[in-house]
Structure formats: C-alpha cells, structure tokens
C-alpha cells in the first residue's frame, strides 16, 4: 500500500465555551467573573487516508465533523494530538501546504458577490500562483464538466444557490489541490443539482486522483461517492469502513414488500409462524415485512405458495434509517 496522504493520531479538540444564565444581571456578573465550560468536540480520533480515496465523514449535527475538517485544513489548533496531511502539519498553515489543499464549504462563499465569477477566479489563480496557460486549461475543463458557461458573466449575487455552488467548486479546484475537504457541498440544493454535483465529483476524482473527505447529511451523497465512511458521534470515531459493511452490521435484515390481489384475511396470524419476521405498518396498500437476512428465501417461498401475492420485492433498508438508528443509539 502507498504512503497515506492523511494521518491523524489522537486528535482532540476541546472548546472553552462561555456559559451564562439568561438575563441582564447574569450578563453583568459574567463581565466580571466569566464562567467557562469545556466542551469536547473531538476526542482522540485516529485514521489514515490513502491518496485518491474519497471518504465520507458522517455523523449527526454537532458530532465533530466540521471541527475535524477545520483542524485538517489548518483553521483550528487541536488541543492535543497530531495530524499530517501531505507531509505538512495543517495548523502551521505554511503557504506550500495551503497551496495543496482546498476546502469547499456549502455555507460559506469564496466568491466576491459583487463581481462576475470569472473575476473572482482570476484573483484566486493569482493568489494560488497558477500559471496563465494552466489556469485557462483548468478553467475550460471545469466549466465544461459543470456546464456553467452561461453563469460566468453575471455577478455572483444574481446566481441561484446551485449555480453558486458550481462556482465554489471551480474556485476550490482551480489550482489542482491534492486534498479536497468538502463540507456539506450539497446543502440546500435540489435533488437534480445534487445529482449533477455528485457526478461531477466522481468524474473529477477519477481523472485527477484528488483525495477527498466529504461531510454531508444526505446519505445519497455519501453512498454515491464514498466507498469508505467514517462515522463520528459525540466527538469519537465509532465506525471506519465500507458503507455496505456498516449497513449490514447494523441492519441484519431485509425489507420484503408485498402487494396482494385480494387482501388476505389474517396476514398477521399467518406471519406468527416465523419468529424473525416483523410486520411493519402498511404504506398505501403495500405491506412491509422486516425479515432476518438468512430467513428471506424461506419466508418468501412460504408467502408465495400460501397467499394471493400480486407483487413481491426484497430490498435493503434505506441507509437513512440505518444511520438514524446509530444516531439514536450512539453506537455501532
């Protein structure tokens, strides 16, 4: 295996958060004797990432995803622990390091809103010292990949959210970074635009072998792009592996969806013969059964031979439901 491009050891960040009761008198007391509370945002996390990998960093709000990305991009000093990205310590923020990474945030803009994107791109190309011919080539490539010719001459403030996100991606990739941190890149975008950005990211990653860490609340992003996911909860890394493995581990069952030609009189009674089958409330005429993986063939055979089945399908539980379960239970 090649040398990892990102190595993280015992990385921990504790925030000191001022704490204050509501009300005027409390705020005056706070002036003289401020109280602080230590909040552990990230606790002792360890991982390595190989060049060219696309890794999804998932977890509920406030789990420590963004804090982790901020430490890796050099914005935050950790409380303790180490990290090496492309042989640099991120929070030294050496220009040579910043030249090689990019952070695209769905909720923060790198563009100047008053002027057309092309002008902002030119400034960024100078800041990142991209040679003129290379700049033109990269720009042409990105513009055609993202199909955004028409946006280039309008001021950024007149662009839609999705159009702006395309610009943010161009701004983040103009200088060919080796490592790309994507913090909620599809935040607030419609489904079609999300899909286009995912296709773009996949293509770009394949062509340029850029290493990507992606955070997103849309599991569709993660399952489309990342073979590997890291799950953070309460600041700790509780799972690191293939997304499918996570799903199998958590959800050792499949969903069997049924439709009948005539409604069976005693479906629930019929199902009591299987100990591992759970009947879920039916959704608009579909009956859904939760069946342990190993019992699926037996159960479906029994149903098909005994009940008036019009349609039967076997599906994996939606990844959202799986993730929701972890967020609720806090463990894998």
């Amino acid at each position, binding site marked *: 295996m090649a040398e990892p491009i990102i190595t993280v050891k015992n990385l921990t960040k504790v925030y000191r958060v001022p704490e204050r009761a509501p009300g005027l008198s409390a705020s005056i007391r706070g002036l003289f004797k401020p109280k602080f509370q230590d909040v552990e945002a990230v606790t002792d996390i360890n991982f390595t990432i190989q060049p060219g990998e696309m890794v999804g960093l998932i977890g509920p709000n406030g789990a420590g995803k963004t804090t982790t990305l901020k430490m890796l991009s050099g914005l*935050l000093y950790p409380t303790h622990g180490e990290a090496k990205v492309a042989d640099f310590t991120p929070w030294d923020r050496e220009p040579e390091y910043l030249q090689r990474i990019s952070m695209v945030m769905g909720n923060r803009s790198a563009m100047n809103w008053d002027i057309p994107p092309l*002008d902002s791109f*030119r*400034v960024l190309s*100078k*800041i*990142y*010292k991209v040679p003129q011919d290379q700049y033109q080539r990269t720009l042409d490539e990105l513009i055609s990949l993202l199909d955004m010719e028409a946006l280039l001459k309008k001021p950024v403030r007149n662009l839609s959210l999705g159009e702006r996100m395309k610009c943010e991606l161009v701004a983040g990739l103009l200088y060919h970074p080796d490592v790309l941190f994507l913090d909620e890149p599809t935040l607030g975008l419609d489904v079609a635009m999300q899909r286009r950005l995912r296709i773009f990211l996949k293509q770009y990653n394949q062509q340029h072998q850029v290493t990507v860490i992606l955070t997103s609340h849309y599991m569709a992003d993660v399952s489309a792009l990342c073979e590997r996911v890291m799950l953070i909860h309460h600041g700790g890394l509780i799972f690191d592996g293939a997304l499918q493995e996570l799903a199998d581990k958590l959800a050792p069952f499949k969903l069997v969806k049924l439709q009948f030609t005539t409604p069976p009189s005693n479906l629930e009674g019929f199902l009591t013969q299987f100990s591992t089958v759970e009947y879920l409330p039916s959704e608009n005429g579909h009956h859904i059964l939760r069946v342990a993986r190993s019992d699926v063939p037996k159960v479906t055979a029994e149903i098909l031979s005994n009940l008036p089945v019009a349609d039967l399908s076997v599906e994996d539980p939606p990844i959202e439901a799986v993730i929701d379960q972890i967020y609720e239970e806090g463990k894998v």
Partner: protein
Amino acid sequence: MNHQGGWELIKNTWQSWLQHRGFFFLLAFGWMLPLLVYLMIWSAAASEGSLTGLSQDTLAGYYLVLVLVNQLTYATTNWTVGDNIRMGQISRWLIQPMSPLYHALSSEIAGKVVFMLFSVPVTAVLALIFRPQFNLSWQQSLLFLPSIVLAWALRFFWGYWLALLAFWATRADSLLALQDTMIFLLGGHLAPIRLLPNWMQSLAKILPFRYMSAFPVEILTGFLDKNEIFSGLLIQLGWTITAYLLYRLVWIRGVRHYEAVGG
C-alpha cells in the same frame, strides 16, 4: 509575501466598490461635512482679523487639506474586520496562501481611489469659494509625503489591532469609535491644534491621534517650523512602528485563539 495575488485582489475590490460608488460618495460627503462646519465656525471667529496668527484664508487652507487628508487616512476597512472575525468569514482567508492583511489592504487602497474620485473635485470647487492661502516651501511640501504615508499607516494599523481584539471580545469595534473621537478632539478636527488649550496641545503632541490626521496638514499649510516637523516625524514613526508591532502581536495570538465559528 504574495504581491501578485494582492495586486489582483486590489484591482478586483476596486471594481466591486465602484459598483457601489453612490454609497461611497455619500459616505465621503458625510465625512466632509463636519469639517466644513468647523471651517465656517473658525472663519467666523477669525473674521475680525486673525485667531492666534490664523487668518480666514489660512484656516480655509487648513480645513480643505484636512478634508482630503482625513479621507486618505481614514481606515474604513477596520470597521468590517470585526464582523469578518465574528461571522467566521476570515476562515476563507486563513486557508489561502496569502496573508489576510492583503484583504484589508486591498479594500483600503480600493476605497481611497473611490473616495478621491468624489473628494478631489468637490474640494477643488470649495477652494474656488473659500480661496485658501498656503505659505509653504518646496522642502515642506516634500516632507508632507512621508508624513501622509505614515499617517495612513499609523491610523490603519492602530485601528486594525483594535479591530482584531474581536478575536476575544465580540464587539471590539466600539474601540474604533473611541479612536475616532480621540482624532476628532486631538487630531485637529474640532480645531487646529494650536487653538486648543495648552494642556490639550501637549497631550496632542504625545498621543498618536494627531499623527493620524492633523500632522501632515500642519506641514503642508506651513504651521510648523523645521524642528517641529522633524521631531513630529520621529514621534509619528515611533507610533507607527508601535502600532505595527501591536498588530503583529494581536494577530498571532488572535489566530491561535480563533475558534473558527459559524459552520
């Protein structure tokens, strides 16, 4: 250092500011107005001859030059520094391979150009009305150049280090308002410094505020003799270096403290 990127940024900021030139012209007009009011008050007071050696036309020269010097040295940028820190916008700049100081400098320089587009013609018209008089030698007008550059640098870095206190206190910009008030009182706005009571004059000569605005004007309008100019330049240089060092200190500690709020 990354001058190429900085220069490109300046050009761009300038373009974006020109889009809002109406707003900036109004701002420039607003800053001009109080100085013109004081000009009229002091000219009325000097109508009977002269006021401690200042005639109406020298006062007119003083205030008209002050209008321009004030706008050249006023660091509007510093008012937005605190917001950029508080709202986390500075995160963007911190991960670029260029000092975030360039972002402040670019809007400074861009702003000066936009303000001057308004102020120079307006002051020229006012000069036709008030008919100012200058008694200066060419040496003095040469010394005006370093003094105005230092005045700008001092006023900018002084405000910048105050604004950077936003890393710790969320509303550090009230300190900028205090700086403005001190310049109003001791920086030759309310009255030319030589019209102030003695104790205020001595205070003005020690503190940095006169060197942010009135000092270059006093040189150009011939208020000062050679010794006063040279000792003034030394004090001005000393304060500018102090302000710069304070900026470096606050910046280095502030960035470490920065919690990168907001997403």
